[in-house]
């Protein structure tokens, strides 16, 4: 097992320490509470734990068992085998944060690659080494904007078409502070122009999503101009995989690009660990939270990499740090770097296009069914909303009986979207699967 000590080792070691029993080392612990009997299940062997875990895993129905059309912030994509082969290398998996660069060049150069790939993908100048997920990356954008304006602008306008978890997280972080998280009360069908009346001289940050929570894609150039005219910053939360096809937000004039990196080669894993992307312009780099790797040289004149601008971070600045973040998503950043390298320029474009075409095929087929219509009226990427003739929960139950994991029930969060289902289609979904979805949807409604 994992504790290598023999009885002889223990005796020798205690002798060196000058103690008689292991228990003697715990004299400082209040006697009344020392050595509690823990009511936990008894130990089992590795073989038995594998069996127990297989039993638990088998009690789930995975997206390998079901045909998945569920998205809403986490997407089922194919992950090339080489991604996990790299992740499983003990040299990456079991290394600590690269605070000692002389023996951590592997991790450091890999993060540098990640920063480069994200910068290129988003069209921004600087990427940090990751946050926890899309939601916390949004929250860090809020914190950065607040710091940027030194607390003089406190209004953060978060689009109603932003993932609800992202907004809820930002609200939790800022509750009780002088930051106000504003959710404009506008028609969900309205485009970004509807946000303009909410942007004024007190606005620090505007956050929109791309594609937005409902899958729609807008050109945010004029929004960026309006935000900048008001003196505020614009953050765009992205699905990075969509950027294989779509205009990068840097070209719109975004000041901050955040996003959920899960689609870039990270398994669904019931919601985590995922990857929080954070990129910005060079002017703002000192206000940015999170670790950052920079290029330099060593004493032997070789090109090498090191954590840099650490004076922003908690282990140096303590209460004056830009954020409390310490542990990040290093291994997930590596996964996405390997994924982006493998797919490269052509592969990422191809996967994004496959998602786009298949989603549009599915949308057209469903829209033609009696009783169903497309709620989404503007361009979308790989996710769209349909209005259904009966409650979404009933439809999903029927779909599940046919081995299909149906779309997200939007009526749960928004009364005005009752009977609306959001469907995600990726490169994994074949035409046969889409046709089966369409056929099964047609079965639940007879007018």
């Amino acid at each position, binding site marked *: 097992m*994992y504790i*290598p000590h023999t009885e002889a080792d223990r005796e020798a070691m205690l002798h060196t320490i000058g103690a008689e029993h292991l228990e003697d*080392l715990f004299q*400082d612990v*209040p006697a009344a509470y020392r050595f*509690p009997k*823990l009511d936990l299940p008894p130990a089992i062997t590795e073989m038995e734990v594998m069996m127990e875990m297989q*039993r638990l*895993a088998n*009690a789930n129905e995975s997206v*390998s068992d079901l045909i998945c059309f569920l998205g809403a912030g986490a997407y*089922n994509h194919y992950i*090339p085998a080489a991604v996990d082969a790299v992740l499983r290398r003990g*040299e990456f998996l079991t290394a*600590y944060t690269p605070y000692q660069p*002389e023996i951590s*060049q592997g*991790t450091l*150069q890999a993060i540098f*690659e990640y920063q480069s*790939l994200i910068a*290129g993908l988003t069209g921004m100048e*600087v990427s940090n*080494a990751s946050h*926890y997920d899309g939601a916390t990356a949004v929250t860090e954008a809020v914190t950065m904007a607040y710091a940027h304006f030194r607390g003089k602008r406190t209004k953060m306008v978060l689009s109603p078409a932003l993932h609800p978890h992202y907004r809820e*997280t930002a609200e*939790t972080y800022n509750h009780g502070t002088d930051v106000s998280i504003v959710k404009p009360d506008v028609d969900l069908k309205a485009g970004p122009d509807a946000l303009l009346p909410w942007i004024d001289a007190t606005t620090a940050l505007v956050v929109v999503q791309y594609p937005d929570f409902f899958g729609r894609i807008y050109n945010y150039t004029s929004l960026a101009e309006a935000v900048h005219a008001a003196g505020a910053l614009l953050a765009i939360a992205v699905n990075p995989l969509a950027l294989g096809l*779509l*205009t990068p937000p840097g070209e719109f004039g975004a000041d901050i690009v955040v996003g959920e990196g899960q689609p870039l080669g990270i398994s*669904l*894993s*019931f*919601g985590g660990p995922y990857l929080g992307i954070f990129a910005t312009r*060079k002017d703002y780099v000192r206000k940015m939270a999170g670790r950052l790797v*920079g*290029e*330099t040289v060593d*004493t*032997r004149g070789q090109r090498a990499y090191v954590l*840099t*601008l650490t004076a922003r971070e908690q*282990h140096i*600045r*303590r*209460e*004056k740090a830009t*954020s*409390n*973040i*310490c*542990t990040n998503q290093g*291994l997930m950043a590596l996964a996405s770097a390997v994924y982006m*390298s493998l797919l*490269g*320029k052509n592969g990422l*474009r191809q996967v994004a296009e*496959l998602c786009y075409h*298949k989603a549009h*095929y599915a949308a057209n087929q469903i829209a033609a069914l009696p009783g169903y219509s497309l709620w989404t009226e503007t361009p979308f990427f790989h996710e769209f909303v349909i209005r259904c003739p009966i409650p979404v929960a009933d439809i999903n139950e029927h779909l599940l009986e046919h081995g299909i994991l149906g779309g*997200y029930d939007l009526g749960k969060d928004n009364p005005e979207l009752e009977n609306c289902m959001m469907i995600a289609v990726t490169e994994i979904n074949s035409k046969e699967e889409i046709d089966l979805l369409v056929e099964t949807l047609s079965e639940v409604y007879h007018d």
Partner: protein
Amino acid sequence: MTESLLCELSVPGRKGVLFPKSDVPKASLPANLTRQRLPLPEVSEVDVVRYFTRLSQLNYCIDKGMYPLGSCTMKYNPKINEETARLSGFANIHPLQPVETIQGCMVLMYELQEMLKEIGGFAGVTLQPAAGAQGELTGVLIIRAYHQSRNDLKRTKILIPDSAHGTNPATSAMSGLEVVQLPSDANGNVDLNELRTHCDDTLAGLMLTNPNTLGLFEENVLEVIRMVHEAGGLVYGDGANMNALLGIVRPGDLGIDVLHYNLHKTFSTPHGGGGPGSGPVGVAAMLVDFMPGPVVDIIEEGDDEIPPLFGFVMPEKSIGRVKSFWGHFGMMVRAYTYIRVHGPEGLRSVSEHAVLNANYLMAQMKKIYHLPYDRTCMHEFVVEGRWDDAPDIHALDIAKRMMDYNLHPPTNYFPLIVHEALMVEPTETESKQTLDAFIEVMEKIADEAHNNPEILKTAPHTTPVGRLDEVKAAKELVLCCGLEFPPRERLLPDKCST
């Protein structure tokens, strides 16, 4: 060593992975939203695998050797954890699936909540926080919400000992509380007299790391907690050092009101070169309703024939969610696996041997390195990396020289209250032979420091790179490769994205 970057390896037309052609009719692409350039590399799978494998070989890691980083609990990461987390029934589950299709995940989360409650002596546990620092923030927000719910609005002051991790003050500042630093006394404990002066009706709480970052169990812990409670404050426990306490004492029994666990320290989930972590939070009974959520609970009782139905429930007065979805489930699978193979006796044995190893090293180290607080330690201890008779040598030089002996250095320059600190945490997974070899190296280095200091000042000598020019890195700020494809001369740093 200089490993070429991907942008330098890229060759136009090369592919790393193929996807099938579209089996549906093509839709027209959105004209004003289709990008013209995609600056990503063009490399083959062989290129990618070799590149990242070569990079990996430049790293030190637990799988290679001992990693005595104080406060980081770099224990061996069991291989079975990696297998269980990758079972398709865990790795391929969408977070928003109907609860009927994910009862295996729900049972695992529920059981892990129960186990962590039992291990720490708490009434409730939330698994949502992503890492230790987020667990801390969660805890502090819970404390603030508790006071506010009682309309006790004056409580804005949080006490943090000077030996605390940097995340403690950073977290408190984020939550809008006023940070007051508490000094340590001569024995490394919280200074009770100083504490007393702050125990008034503005006190929100105390963030206590116990054992503290000197590796010492707070001798007056019951008194400290009693004083804070009597003043109406709550006590937050920084669980970074839980590896000393499994089956030894339950923080909840001592009166600690909130504590975060680090699954990536105590419960063996891998650090991954910086993350992901997982920072579940345990709370006392009066705080259960304030936990972030949702948390897993039984939503339909079972009977003899039908098992109960588990689902997500939002605590009544929850501070809200702190991240997307439910937490780092993949880390929960690993931690659950770890707890199951240990059982209650095994967990106690983990902490006993972590403390045994630390005291064994300390007993030998203190013969050659100055030990500022000479008491029985818990799972870690701090010595000074300096000698009066070797005035040029600093902790940094010792740390760098250790690399030449194939060791990862201890945490250095932390805690801040010890000069030239070297903070050593061996963990329970290191054998006596490994520890003896470590001591031997530390003796050699002490000898070199006195007789051949230059070899320390210029160390490391055998690593892939030598000491780095950190000033250049911060001044010139080259933060990405320039990404020009096909590879040409690399662009200036400010042209990264163009």
